[in-house]
Structures are given as C-alpha cells and as structure tokens.
C-alpha cells in the first residue's frame, strides 16, 4: 500500500514537473513576477496631465456619412478619443475592445453620457462603411467612428499631443499606417483632454477608471 502510494506520488510529481517546465518557459518570456508587478494594479494606467489639451476644432464625417463636429457634439460630455485604423490587427482592436468591455459595465446613465470616438489615421481605406463595420466588432455600435481628410485628422491629433504619419505605400503594395500612442480622455467639466492611457492599458484599468472619467474626476 505504502509502495503503491509512493509510486503514484512519483508519477504525479513527474507529470507536474514536466508540465511546469513548459509553463515556466513561457513565464520567462515576459510575464515574470517582477514585470507583472510593474505592469499590474499597483501602478496607475492613467497619466493625468498638468496641462490639459484644448479639444481641437475637428469637423469630420461619421460612420453614417454625416458631418460630425467634435467640439459641438461632445461639449459637456465625458469623451474618449483614439486614433487608429481598421487594417490594424493587434493594438487598435485591443484598445477599442478593452474600452468596450469597461463601457458595457457602466450603468446606462453613464453610458449615455460617455462618448467614445475613434478617428481613422487611414481615411483612404477607412470609409464610413468600413469604419462602421469594424467598430461594431472591435468596440460597440454606439461608438463614433470618424473619417475625413488626412491633413485635418493629423492637425487635430497634433493638438491633442498625438503624432501620426500619413499611410505610406510600400514597394510591395502594402500600406503602412500608424495608430496613435494614447487614448485621451476629455473632461465633461472643462472639455479639456486631461488624462492619457497608453496602449498597454487593460480592460480592468478602464473598468476602474471610467466611472471617475464620466464625472470628470481624476482617476
């Protein structure tokens, strides 16, 4: 009996060691406990700006093909703005999906207030229809998608501290576009852009912060 137990234990231990040798290898590739701590909950995802950005006077076209005046439509409302493009396989859908998860957790009254605006950096490919289709999958049908002339979009982004280059066609015919480095939150109290989120902000970070942003408070 004792012998049998010992063997069973040995077997389980071997199995566990074998499994953990694989899992351990994966952990080495960037999710060691140390890096978890620095990227985790004890460090704030939000950067609150000492000098907030004035909301730019940006007039573009929404996913229904209608004129959309950013200042007029988002005046006095908490607003998140992100610059990206739909041919972006990783960071753009990740960012919008993280925001959408947090958005869906807000009470309806807060959801009615919060404006989430995705501005394309690749207007030639991102037609209103393409943007609308993508936003339904990547974000939420209530999010606003904007397209227009690249110089107007670039100028608007620059006034929010976001640098974007025009899409560039490579020799092989592929197009290299660029997404913005940060999501900007505008306050319902001042209409100024006062908080930044980098692209490694998680859904949980947004879940924590959106209720504050809706009130115009510092997260």
């Amino acid at each position: 009996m004792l012998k049998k137990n010992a063997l069973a234990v040995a077997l389980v231990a071997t199995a566990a060691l074998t499994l953990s040798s694989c899992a351990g290898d994966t952990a080495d590739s960037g999710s060691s406990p140390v890096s978890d701590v620095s990227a985790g909950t004890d460090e704030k995802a939000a950067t609150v700006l000492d000098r907030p950005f004035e909301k730019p006077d940006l007039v573009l076209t929404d996913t229904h093909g209608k004129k959309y005046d950013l200042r007029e439509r988002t005046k006095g409302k908490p607003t998140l703005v992100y610059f990206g493009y739909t041919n972006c396989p990783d960071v753009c859908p990740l960012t919008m999906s993280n925001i959408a998860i947090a958005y869906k957790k807000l009470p309806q009254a807060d959801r009615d207030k919060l404006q989430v605006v995705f501005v394309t950096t690749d207007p030639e490919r991102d037609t209103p229809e393409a943007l609308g289709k993508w936003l339904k999958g990547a974000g939420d049908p209530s999010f606003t998608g904007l397209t227009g002339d690249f110089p107007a979009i670039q100028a608007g982004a620059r006034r929010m501290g976001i640098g974007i280059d025009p899409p560039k066609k490579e020799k092989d015919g592929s197009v290299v576009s660029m997404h913005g480095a940060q999501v900007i939150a505008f306050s319902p109290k001042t209409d100024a852009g006062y908080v930044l989120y980098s692209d490694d902000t998680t859904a949980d970070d947004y879940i924590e912060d959106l209720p504050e942003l809706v009130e115009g408070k510092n997260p």
Partner: protein
Amino acid sequence: MNRRTILATAAALTAGLVLAGCSTGSGSGGPALKVEGAFMPEPVTDDMAAGFLTVKNDSGTADRLTSVTSDIAGEVTIHRTTGQKMREAESFDVPADGELNLERGGNHLMFMELRKKPEQGDTVSVELHFEKAGPIRAELPVKETTHNPDKQ
C-alpha cells in the same frame, strides 16, 4: 501490474505530456526549436487576424523564422512593430540559446484573406518555416479579443 509496468506506464505518460505541452521541431540536423504560448485573439472582423507565440531555441545555433503558412488564411505575414507602425518583415531572428517573442503590442503574425472568421474556442494551425530547422506545426487556440498573457 508489477512495479516495472507501472513505472513504464508513468514514463510513457510523461512522454505524452511533454509532446502535448510543446511542439518541437523535427529539424533535420538544424537547431532544436520549440513553440510555446501560442494564441490568436479572436479577430473583430473576418478580414484579418493576428497571432502570437514564442519560439525557443535551446541550441547553440541561431536560426531565423522566414515564413508562416496556415489553412485558414490566404496569406500569413510576419510583422515587425516599430513605435505605432507595423510593416512586413523578411524574417525574425531566433537567437542561439534564446527565444523569439511575438507578443501583443509588438511583433506578430498577421493573417489575411481569412477563409472563415476564427471564433473563441477554435484552434488555428500554422506551419512555421525556418532558415535552418525543419518546419514546425503549431496550434493557436483562439482566445478572447483582449487576451494578453503578459497582463494576467
């Protein structure tokens, strides 16, 4: 079952676990490579998808990931991310006694011309081609769109 059989069974099970845990290259004399932590975030449209994985190289010979193929996509390219831009790369280095990490926000596989939209719970098969090692098949479980192992 005598003790020897039980031990043999244990050894066989262990071997099975090793195989299930990691896919190892059946390289013909090239460096011994293995793929770990592979996944695909569920794409948001049926136009394109991204894939992430780590290629471990436990040998003293450096190699290079040169191309990727998959049944589900007309085209798979390897993409290098620099700042907020990504462009197709010719190849990715797999350093000797090191690893190639394709991870969220960084370098990645890009699947185009999808034959069907992968859904969470599906598994996508890819074949990785290297300059020296033989091709490696890897299975990418499809996870939620926001899946990011570095953040969990």
